[in-house]
């Protein structure tokens, strides 16, 4: 196979971009910015989804006992529900003690709430994630149970949040990607117009139109790929920081897996496609008018 054409194309790409370094840099940066936003939204919505999945795996349910109800009697009742493995009564005193334990100014907390405002509660462990929902329904139907809280409720909220974020992210990313396509198109158009003499010579020497366009597709693809690499690096940094922050903030005992690889692959692929698409458009606009 003759690799020299590729060598010449890469060499000409270097010459070409060097002629308009600022336009090329601006194109790379706008691609990087658009893809960073795109990838950022992808990572955040993915994280929320995996957080929701994590919550859905939780098998603990908390049921708060209504004022005046007998917590021990309710616990006995709860043990009869199908799918319940264990029930522990946590008294209102215990809840207050646990809460106060995490505050440095415990004395002040006790002074502020001389009458413990917390209700008694039941900590219910179920056999598996599938049993959470029916057990929650059964508990909620029991007289004397005020409120039932499970991780799956939060999961549903998170999933809804992730979906909303995905929609907003898609709209914002599309806007920025459109701007990136426009910028790369303008840059490639400039690069093509500045090489009118080379293009005329190539046509006269017998280079096909497809061969001429391939040069600019390569250059546009490279601009897009460079922008995508920049965005990918920034995204990795963001994911690294986000993982640390989540580990500090989330009281879940486990941080959801921030897997940036799918987002990175999407960013790199999209960047290259943006470059290729924009240069195809620029080549169509510029070379369509060219006469041999």
């Amino acid at each position, binding site marked *: 196979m003759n690799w*020299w*054409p590729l060598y010449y194309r890469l060499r000409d790409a270097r010459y070409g971009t060097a002629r308009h370094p600022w336009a090329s840099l601006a194109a790379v940066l706008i691609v990087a910015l658009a893809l960073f936003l795109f990838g950022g939204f992808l990572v955040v919505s993915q994280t929320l989804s995996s957080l929701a999945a994590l919550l859905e795996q939780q098998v603990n349910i908390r049921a708060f006992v209504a004022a005046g109800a007998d917590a021990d009697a309710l616990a006995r009742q709860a043990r009869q529900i199908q799918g319940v493995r264990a029930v522990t009564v946590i008294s209102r005193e215990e809840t207050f003690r646990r809460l106060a334990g995490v505050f440095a100014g415990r004395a002040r907390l006790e002074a502020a709430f001389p009458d413990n405002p917390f209700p008694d509660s039941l900590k219910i462990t179920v056999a598996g994630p599938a049993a959470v929902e029916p057990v929650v329904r059964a508990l909620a139907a029991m007289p004397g149970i005020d409120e039932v809280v499970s991780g799956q409720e939060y999961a549903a909220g998170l999933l809804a949040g992730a979906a909303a974020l995905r929609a907003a992210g898609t709209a914002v990313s599309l806007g920025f990607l459109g701007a990136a396509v426009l910028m790369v198109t303008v840059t490639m158009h400039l690069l093509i117009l500045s090489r009118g*003499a080379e293009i005329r*010579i*190539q*046509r*006269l020497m017998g280079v*096909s139109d497809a*061969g001429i366009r391939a040069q600019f597709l390569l250059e546009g693809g490279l601009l897009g790929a460079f922008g995508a690499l920049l965005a990918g690096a920034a995204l990795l940094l963001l994911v690294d920081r986000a993982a640390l922050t989540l580990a500090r903030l989330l009281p879940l005992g486990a941080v959801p897996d921030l897997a940036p690889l799918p987002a990175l692959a999407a960013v790199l692929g999209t960047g290259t496609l943006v470059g290729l698409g924009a240069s195809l458009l620029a080549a169509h606009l510029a070379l369509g008018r060219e006469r*041999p």
Partner: protein
Amino acid sequence: MVGRSRLEIRLENVVKRYRPGDPPALDGVTLSVAPGEWVFIVGPSGAGKTTLLKLLYAAERPDSGRVLVDGTDVAAVPAFRLRRRLGIIFQHFELLPARTALENVAYGAEVLGVPPREAAARAREMLDLVGLAGKMDRFPSELSGGEQQRVAIARALVNRPQLILADEPTGDLDPENADHVIRVLDTVHRQWPATVMVVTHAADLVSRLERRVVRLERGRVTADYRGGYSPPGRDLPASGLPAPGPAQGASGP
């Protein structure tokens, strides 16, 4: 020098209009050029000389009639395939200012994927052929007009074309350089078995070489001289060449 087969050219009743309703740029031109033959195409501005050349390198298509290069209808093959067998030279040299003479010539081979070493070797050979062996590393801005045109000729020859088409190759040059460029083309033609077609206004150069001269006027072939004529002035008169008798291989009124 590598010998290769030369191309025959035939135009059969070719008509070309740029816009409907306009007078034709070429109006029923029929012309044959034998393999290895050198033909000057002369005539006043707007006579259709450049259009004729454009049809030969497929930059334009005829409205009717056929343009045959080496027996193949130009309309039936992709333009780029045809052009790989041609060497095309223009009045404006179309050199790349940021490249040296050697790089400009080698570029003509590189764009077709010739490896760098071979492209450079071919470029040196061609620059030597056009008498620029000592100026290979000069940039176009460091060369005279005539030298720049010789670089352009070397680039047109670098892929060993079988048909050389030159459109006013001396149009931008003073008489001395114009003479030099035509002598270079003549030297090339003597060593290189290619068919050559040169469009020009320079009557004195045409008369000196004693080659076939085809005269076009208003898109028609009005005369076809096969060597040896003396134009009355320095430039060919708009009214036509001295009549040598009936045109050979020509059509028209």
